[in-house]
């Protein structure tokens, strides 16, 4: 059976996935660095009585890196919270119709957010907005938002097409959409994460 859309989606997915993974890993590394910075701050303040100047500035500037950057990654793996009560009971076209609708709405709102969050960045850039203590420029942090949202938009577009493809032909294999998990499967993930099963291999997702 011919499936040109499927072939395209597979290619797009392979293109975006490594960027998303890199963003997520960067967010994780940043959290780890936040831990190190916090320890450093405590040591400097309590032992040397010389706290880091602008510690809060640095934390707040870097937060965008783990608060927004990896949003597309989480969208890909279906990590954003939703209520699955109804969709879990549906199959075939009705399910794919709802999913298409949902990603269509997402595309709408994210497309609105991108230019306006870019404006937010641009104002900071133009007027030289800076932090309180260290007077660091805030625009690079604000620029992260439209960048991350643009990647999210690409991911949402891929998922939208993935759902449309299944809406047209529900017999096709699922592709480029997050898998829906039953409670047993969510439980299995939790168990693996807690290190209870002994396969700490790098994950392929």
């Amino acid at each position, binding site marked *: 059976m011919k499936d040109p859309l499927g072939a395209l989606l597979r290619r797009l997915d392979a293109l975006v996935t490594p960027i998303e993974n890199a963003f997520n*890993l960067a967010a994780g590394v940043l959290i780890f660095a936040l831990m190190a910075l916090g320890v450093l701050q405590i040591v400097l303040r309590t032992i040397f009585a010389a706290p880091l100047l602008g510690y809060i500035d640095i934390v707040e500037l870097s937060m*965008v890196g783990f608060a927004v950057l990896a949003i597309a990654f989480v969208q890909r793996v279906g990590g954003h919270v939703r209520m699955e009560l109804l969709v879990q009971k549906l199959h075939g076209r009705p399910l794919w119709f709802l999913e298409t609708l949902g990603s269509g709405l997402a595309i709408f709102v994210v497309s609105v957010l991108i230019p306006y969050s870019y404006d937010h960045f641009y104002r900071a850039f133009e007027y030289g907005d800076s932090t309180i203590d260290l007077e660091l420029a805030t625009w690079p942090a604000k620029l992260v938002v439209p960048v991350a949202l643009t990647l999210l938009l690409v991911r949402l577009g891929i998922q939208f097409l993935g759902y449309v493809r299944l809406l047209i032909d529900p017999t096709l294999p699922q592709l480029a959409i997050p898998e829906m998990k039953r409670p047993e499967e969510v439980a299995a993930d939790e168990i693996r994460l807690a290190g209870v099963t002994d396969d700490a291999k790098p994950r392929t997702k």
Partner: protein
Amino acid sequence: MVDAFWIGIFGVGMLIALVVVGVRVYIAAAVVGFLGLFVLEGWDVAGAIAGTIPHSKTVTYPLSVLPLFILIGFLAFHAGLTGKLFEAARRWLGWVPGGLAVSTVFASAGFAAVSGASTATSAVFSRVAIPDMLTNGYSKRLTAGVIAAGGTLASLIPPSAILVIYAILVEQSVGKLLLAGLLPGVVSVFIYTALIIGMCVWRPELGQASSGFTWRERFASLPGSFPIFIVVGIIFGALYTGVATPTEAGALGAAVVFALYVYRAWQQRDLKQMGFRLKDAITETAKLTIMIFTLIWGVFLFVRFLGFAGLPNEFANWVVGLDLPPILIMVCILLAYAVLGMFMDAIGMLILTLPVVYPAVIALGYDPIWFGIIVVKMAEICLITPPIGLNCFVVAGVSRDLQPVGDRDMAIPLQDVFRGIGPFFVADVLTVIVLLLLPEIVLWLPNQMAQ
């Protein structure tokens, strides 16, 4: 403005409809929030508000404690603390009727002090406690019930991500909320313990006392669980005295757990495995972190719209105007949470509902800190009730993969887990009633806190 009010009501209806048909909550909230602002204030105002919120509502210093608490939790599972804690608990408490079950409750509570994740705590204790309990002749139902229920202690006993989120949403002190969770956690432990002892005295076949440890053996078991006390000491000390911010305490706590984790990997000569696990732990931390932050800004956009529509105020006025005793309204709110929590992630449920529910609760004269603890306890109860009851699925899932000991099969079927959890569900309801009647249990510790 009657018009704005009805647009607000329509928006709430639309949000509920979108969430029910499975639209991701952050999208549903952002779409309705943006469209609502557009209708009320025009496209440009709506866009300007929407464009700033994802940045301005997420990059605030108090929120920076969240990823650190989450990181502590993920690292703690690999730091080798659970086995030692359980061993210490059974040597000290094994002699009471149902001693191993009581030990599981205490060890879970101890581990909760370094972990904020209920389901993962249940997973770890399933592996540690199931083989021991079943080979000692404990009933499968009691075993499963105590492990699933024990896991829920993680959300109440600090560090708890969900309490931080509540504090930030309702603009209360993060430190106070975290401290407030401690005593209710202890009350839960005692109610569970009384329940187990009562059940095992009444029906000794459920689980025997296991005695025969000398004092020397008891004290010998303590050093293995010291790291837990260090982490607890750091976090409570910092919060109580106020010498460090929650973020700094979280960073230090995470660093201690990380050091233990490295030490253990080095001891087991397993540094490669450690590398994989560390990558897993930090990428999962990042994933959970962004899920929470995204939800926060999505819902804030919706909340901004509600604010323009004046809905939270109207709702609060309406609730206060009801000719009903506040306690009855509170019970209704809690029951609504119990039902909602069966179908939705606890954090999602809180972020979504609090903007409307919270002002009403405060208008009724309830304490903000107290309500946070009650709501989190309700969310925890939902982790052990069908149909989702994730903790129960976790216990059944782990037990299926355990090796049989002798001729004893370790697998506990899901039905048995759900039956076993029954008495603990009753105990949890009892805890909520106790906290309703004696709010001082929640408020005493935070009120002692240094200003």
